[in-house]
Structure formats: C-alpha cells, structure tokens
C-alpha cells in the first residue's frame, strides 16, 4: 500500500480566477470522506447515547441479558460482544494458517507462471459477496456440521467461524504476500551466504522481517470478520444467550443490529440500544484499523522504505 503523494516541481499558483475556483471546488469535495466519517460518528453518538440514560454504560457493556422487547427490557450486550469475539477468534484460527501459509507459498515456492495465475485468482476470490458465503453456509455447511458433529442444529459459532475464516483468507493472503515482497532480497542473500537453506531463511529471516506486515494482514482480516454481517446473520444461529462453546448458536453484534433494526420504532429505547451497539462495533473496528496502520508504518520504517 504505497502512498507516495505526487509532487510538482514548480509551484504553479494558478493565477487566474478560474483556476482558483477550481482548486477551491476540489478542496471542498476532497473533504467529503471526512464529512461522511464524521457524519457516521455523529449519528452513532446522537442516536446511541440516549440509551445510557436508561442503562449505565457498565451494565450495558457487561450485562448478560439481552431482552430488548420485554417489559421491563434488559439491555446487556455482553453475550453479543462475546459472540462477536468468539466467531472472530474461530475465523482467525482458520484464516491465519491458510492465509499466511498461502502467502508464504506464493512468495517462496511458486514459480513466476504460477504466481501470475494464482495472485489474480486469489484477488478475484476476495470479491465474492458475503451473502453468497452465507447462502453456502446455510445450504451446505449447516447440514454437514449437523451430521458430522451430531449437533442438534448446524447453525452455530463454528459454522460462522469456518465461513468467515475462508472469507478472510484471500485478504490476509494478499496483504501478507505484499509484506513478504517488501523484504529486501539482500536479507535473503545474506542468509544464504552464511549457509542457511531456504526453509531456515524463510522462517528465521524473512518471516520475522515481515512480521509487522503479516500482523497487519491478520488484524485487517480480523477487522473484516468482526464487521461481517450477512454471513453471521444467516448461519450463526441467533441465540442471544451467553456463548459457552463453538457449538452454541450465537448472535454477534452485527447480526443483532441487522435482525432487530426493523422492529425498533424510531426513537425508542431499542432503537437507541441498537445504535449504541453499532457505536461500540465502530469503535472496535476503528481501533483495529488504527493499530494496523501504526504497525504497518513502523514496518515500513524498519525495512527502510518510505514512511
């Protein structure tokens, strides 16, 4: 992800009025993404904060009962948060070996022709829509899990984890492979020069050097998994009890929002609670992205690339 800004050698001030106006227009439009990001944050805060008049933040975050439509309603989202993390953890267990392993294969073992085919194919596969994954989960994975593990119902955290893991693998693979490519050849050559073979070079020189980049890939894969909605909505099961194992049906935060949004009248407590969940989700993914950004920057500095 190189971000070299274009630099113009001469400073063309654009003296005519037309130039100035055009520049001004572009400046304003460029702030669009900032405006939308801020807009999202503002809306989330505005619609989410009111729930804390009813429930204290601690009770909201750590409460174990999510019964928003009963009277009296209970708004504890701990089961939802734990479900999200459980499913993400499971997805990590799948996409980490598959993604990083594939990246290593591409980097070290694949010949140029193989690379030329495999890299675009993996990138292509990263664009499969999540609802298609979810659909596959419902019609193929669910009965399979039910039979294999003798479960009452095949829709559970494991189901969602498997599918999310496969979904995140192309992303992790692409980014990790880019990171591996950044490792200068000189590192490898130095290692060969002292007598190490390819495997030793790979595991003891290249991977540690690309470590931050690979971490970035994994964090971004996690970020994608935790923010994924349609797949978990269709296969994770939907029970809002505290998850105890991978075989339990679960309701991650994204699924809760998508499933319950329609029935919460505008301005009701349930409505505010759902926005508050979205706010927390946003903060979590924001933190992931910031951490990934920081690691990725330090990685580039460490390797002597432009920051």
């Amino acid at each position, binding site marked *: 992800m190189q971000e070299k800004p274009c630099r113009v050698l001469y400073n063309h001030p654009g003296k005519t009025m037309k130039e100035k106006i055009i520049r001004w227009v572009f400046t304003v439009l460029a702030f669009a993404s900032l405006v939308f990001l801020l807009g999202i944050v503002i809306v989330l805060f505005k619609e989410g904060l009111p729930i804390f008049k009813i429930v204290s933040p601690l009770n909201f975050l750590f409460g174990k009962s999510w019964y928003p439509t009963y009277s009296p309603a209970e708004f504890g989202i701990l089961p939802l948060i734990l479900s999200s993390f459980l499913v993400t953890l499971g997805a990590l267990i799948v996409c980490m070996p598959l993604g990083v392993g594939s990246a290593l294969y591409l980097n070290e073992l694949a010949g140029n022709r193989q690379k030329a085919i495999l890299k675009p194919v993996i990138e292509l596969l990263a664009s499969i829509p999540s609802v298609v994954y979810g659909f596959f989960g419902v019609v193929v994975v669910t009965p399979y899990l039910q039979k294999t593990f003798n479960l009452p119902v095949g829709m559970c955290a494991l189901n969602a984890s498997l599918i999310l893991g496969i979904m995140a693998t192309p992303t992790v693979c692409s980014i990790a492979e880019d990171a591996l490519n950044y490792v200068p050849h000189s590192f490898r050559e130095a290692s060969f020069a002292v007598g190490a073979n390819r495997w030793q070079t790979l595991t003891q020189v290249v991977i540690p050097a690309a470590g931050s980049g690979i971490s970035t890939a994994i964090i971004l894969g996690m970020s994608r998994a935790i923010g994924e909605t349609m797949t978990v909505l269709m296969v994770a099961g939907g029970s809002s009890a505290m998850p105890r194992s991978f075989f339990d049906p679960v309701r991650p935060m994204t699924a809760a929002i998508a499933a319950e949004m329609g*029935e919460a009248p505008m301005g009701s407590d349930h409505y505010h609670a759902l926005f508050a969940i979205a706010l927390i989700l946003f903060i979590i993914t924001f933190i992931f992205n910031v951490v990934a950004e920081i690691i990725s920057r330090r990685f580039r500095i460490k390797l002597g690339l432009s920051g």
Partner: protein
Amino acid sequence: MKKTILLFVAATLLFVQGVKASDRIVMEGSTTVLPIAQKTAEVYMDGNPQAQISVRGGGSSVGITSLIDGTCDIADASRSIKDTELEKAASRGVSPKAHVVAMDGIVLIVNPSNTVNGLTKQQAKDIFTGKVSNWSEVGGRNEKIVSISRDSSSGTFEAFGALVLGGAKVRPDALLQASNQAVVSIVSQTPGAIGYVGLGYVTGAVKSLEFEGVKASKETVLTGKYKVGRPLFMYTNGDPKGATKNFIDFVKSAEGQKIAEQEGFVGLK
C-alpha cells in the same frame, strides 16, 4: 464528450420523478401473513395492472414500526398492536386501524421422527421456559429438546408468548429464527427440535402436535376448540383510501379469502 454527458444527465433527470404514485402500496410485516399478502398482491396486480404493490417481511413489529414511522401503507401483523405502540403512533399523529384478514392457529411442530403426539399447555410452557429439557420428561425418547423460537420482531412470538407462556420469558438457549419458514426448515432437519408456526406453514416435512388434546385444523381454530388461535391483521393509518382501500377490500372479499384458505389459513366466513 460534452454531448454524452448532457444526454446522460437528461436521461437521469427524466428518471427522477419523485412523485409517489397514488396507486402504489407498500406492505410490510408479519411473515405469517406474508404468503397471504404476497399471493393476494399478485392476483390483485393481475387484475389491476396500474397497481404497484411491494411486499416485505421482517416480522409484525417491523410492519407496525414502519406504519408508525410512515414508511409503509399496510402493516401485516399476526398479533394485535401493543399499547406502547399505540402511544407512539399517537405521538406521531398516526392512528392504526385494524382489519382482520384471516384466522390462524399457532401449531407446535416437531420432527417427524419424534414419538410424542401432543403436549399440555403446562408442558409446552415448561419446555419453552427452560424447566423441561429432555423429551423423556414429556413422554418421548431420551433426547435433548432443541427449542426453536422466533425473534422478538415476530407477532407469532408475541402471540405464543401471551397464549401459551403467559408472558414468561423464553429460555435463553432457544434458537431465534426470523421467519416461520426458517422454523419449519430447522425442525424438519433436527430430530430433537420443537417449534411453533402458523397453521399455513405446516407441511409434510414436520409433525404437528396436539395441544391440550386438540389437533389444530381450520375447523378447530374457527370454532375456538383449538385454544391457540389468533386473528391475522392488516393495519392501516386511519381509514384506508384509494388503492389501499381497494386492496384491503379485495383481501377481505370471497376471492381474497379463498387465497387465504389456499395458503393454509382459515378464512373469515
């Protein structure tokens, strides 16, 4: 280049009409009512080509919420509107009017391999509130009971909760599904499962249980012998006018009722 842009903009502007057609009807809500809503919409549009009806599911609460927020014309509901919802509606200047379009029974269904034939109200309540967890406790095999319930936007859920559970909370490990059809799917594939669906959704893929000794059927629901019966509603904002009125009249007419019966529900006659 400039000409193509101009042409394009003109075409786009033509497309942006923005006037809500007066014979456009938006229907949202209960998945129980959905088969009736959909089929009647189809037949009605066949007979009235200028009508434009769009149908959505989501659950009774979704429909009523939409009606209150002003984003739909007809709210399909398999339960009656709650007081809190009426208050909310009043504060927005919306006055929901109920139209009964069919009668329905909520049927307890289990997997066809299940040996149990019926449950009492107390047994059903115990199962769904978490007191009973094994089929052997109600006369079946030694097998864990997997409770399939509906999520909170469902009118069927509310009705079941009121009529069978007496307002008690559903057990936390129940699997919450978004529609009647989803419940049928899971129950048909899961040997130890039990769920509840509208009468129109009972197919050969599942086995229906007797409730308090009474089998659910159109007759027993109509006569009230089957205790878990309820009316199915379409709510409008005040008295319906124009296309909406025509459509609701159609649903209540003999032809509309015939469609309801075909879909497995109980007509009003």
